[in-house]
């Protein structure tokens, strides 16, 4: 179908988005070539100096990136396994089906940053309920001030907050599956486990890939949680890339350098997400 005024439909949205974004994108690239900081704000030109510093003399950025990769892969994996299981369970017959479906969606509807403030009180080391429970065993794990435990805390909160999103995508996928393959499997006498391995899982493979990619994109932006829960601490042990860029740019006002960080980070993200997407397609489709 074609029609000569087709641009009237597309252009308002496209131009609005471009109009709002064109300045930020060009400005970020230009800013990354300057030494703008709080002492000398201004767009001078220092060539690739910021990038050289980033690649040769900034271990903290690469550490934060490694940590971010670890955090997003772990949380998304947990969210996928839990979200898919929950979706399967309420997709089948279960008592109070609609109640569970609504309940499982609720964390996603709550503002992450506000719920994190609540989680902070939950994990409070002397006054929170978690350590009240652990005190029964005479233990008081430092949930927010130990470098490893604080990662566990961040993961717990992220899983709580975003499993519902995975659950929603997977349940919507399950509900859209055709009925015939399941009937055929039942007639062939397949048990629940074989039905899952040979029918449900392969049919869900494309949806799984989509859901995992979407969640990885969103998870790579982890920032609110870290900001409220631990402020990147103790030390830099929960600092993610976004948070590091935030500190450099809007706390230390090294605008030029943080723009270089942002730009490098974007390029790495786009490349790695493309690679991950291809790998996932191989894993899921091969098994199917």
């Amino acid at each position: 179908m074609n029609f000569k005024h087709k641009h009237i439909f597309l252009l308002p949205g496209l131009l609005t988005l471009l109009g709002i974004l064109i300045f930020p994108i060009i400005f970020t690239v230009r800013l990354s070539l300057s030494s703008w900081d709080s002492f000398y704000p201004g767009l001078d030109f220092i060539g690739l100096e910021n990038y050289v510093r980033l690649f040769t003399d900034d271990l903290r950025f690469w550490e934060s990136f490694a940590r971010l990769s670890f955090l997003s892969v772990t949380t998304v994996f947990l969210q996928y396994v839990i979200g898919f299981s929950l979706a399967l369970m309420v997709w089948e017959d279960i008592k109070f089906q609609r109640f569970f479906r609504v309940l499982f969606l609720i964390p996603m509807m709550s503002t992450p940053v506000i719920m994190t403030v609540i989680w902070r009180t939950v994990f409070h080391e002397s006054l929170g309920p978690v350590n009240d429970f652990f005190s029964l065993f005479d233990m008081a794990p430092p949930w927010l001030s130990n470098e490893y435990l604080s990662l566990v805390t961040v993961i717990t909160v992220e899983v709580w907050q975003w499993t519902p999103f995975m659950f929603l995508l997977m349940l919507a996928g399950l509900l859209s599956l055709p009925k015939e393959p399941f009937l055929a499997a039942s007639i062939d006498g397949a048990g629940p486990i074989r039905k899952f391995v040979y029918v449900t899982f392969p049919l869900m493979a494309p949806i799984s890939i989509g859901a995992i990619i979407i969640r990885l994109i969103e998870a790579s932006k982890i920032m609110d949680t870290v900001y409220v829960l631990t402020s990147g601490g103790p030390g830099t042990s929960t600092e993610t890339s976004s948070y590091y860029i935030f500190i450099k740019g809007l706390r230390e006002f090294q605008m030029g350098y943080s723009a270089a960080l942002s730009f490098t980070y974007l390029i790495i993200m786009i490349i790695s997400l493309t690679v991950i997407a291809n790998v996932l397609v191989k894993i899921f489709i091969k098994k199917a």
Partner: protein
Amino acid sequence: MTFIYRALKYGFVSVWSMFVIAPFLWALSTSFKDFNSVTGSATYIPWVDFEPSLEGWKVLVRSPAQGGVNIVEPYFNSIFVTCSASLISIILGTLAAYALSRFTFKAGFIKNNDITFFFISQRIMPPVVLSIPFFIMLGFLGLLDSLFGLILVYIVLLMPIAVWIMVDFFNKVPREIDETALIDGCNPYQAFYKVVLPNSIPGLIVAGLFCMIFGWTDFFFAFILTFTEVQLLPVAIVALNSSITPWWSLSASALVSVAPLIVVAFLVERYLSKGNLSGALK
């Protein structure tokens, strides 16, 4: 075998439900505490563990001059910004999605899929990358610390979601519908407005709900781009999280902020059960 499976299933679902509810219950209980019940050790059940007080809730309706926390104005700001940005994003996004689903575009090597990807790829950008240039741009336009500036930024956040959901949705609406309308003498605008749009209401609602969720729950842009004149709800509540945190009013305001979106959860579930989400969410 089936028995074990059922036991495991109900076990898992119950444990997860408890995990989901726990922080809300804790917040509910905390919102009725006062200073004495919070310090000391963790307490749970009113009247048994501690003497309930309405202080946390009263603070919310008192004016700041009397030591209250002003969340009424941020509340309405949040509603206004979320709704305006969602509405604009849905309108522009739906038009663009319709064009991308029905017509072929070609400009050099750029085709329909590339344009769709351009829209959706905006979600990859972490807010922090955009925040600095936005800060400078809005400052230049005199829109820092204003509702209009925030709406502008939120459109960038929400339009990709609208396009993403609506392209998939329109791809599922049979093309014959448009073609019949055209044969019956509608021009393409009328075909879209009178025939396609009424058939797309479920998709529009889903896209709208998603825009609302992501607009309502954003914190970072509101945090960076506003200071004193305009405050959105998440920023106002997190501001309470100072060194001497009033846990009770914090919990009460957190619950108040979650409340409107519980309705959204019910709506999403309803459209999910009807099978309307399945097409829209792939």
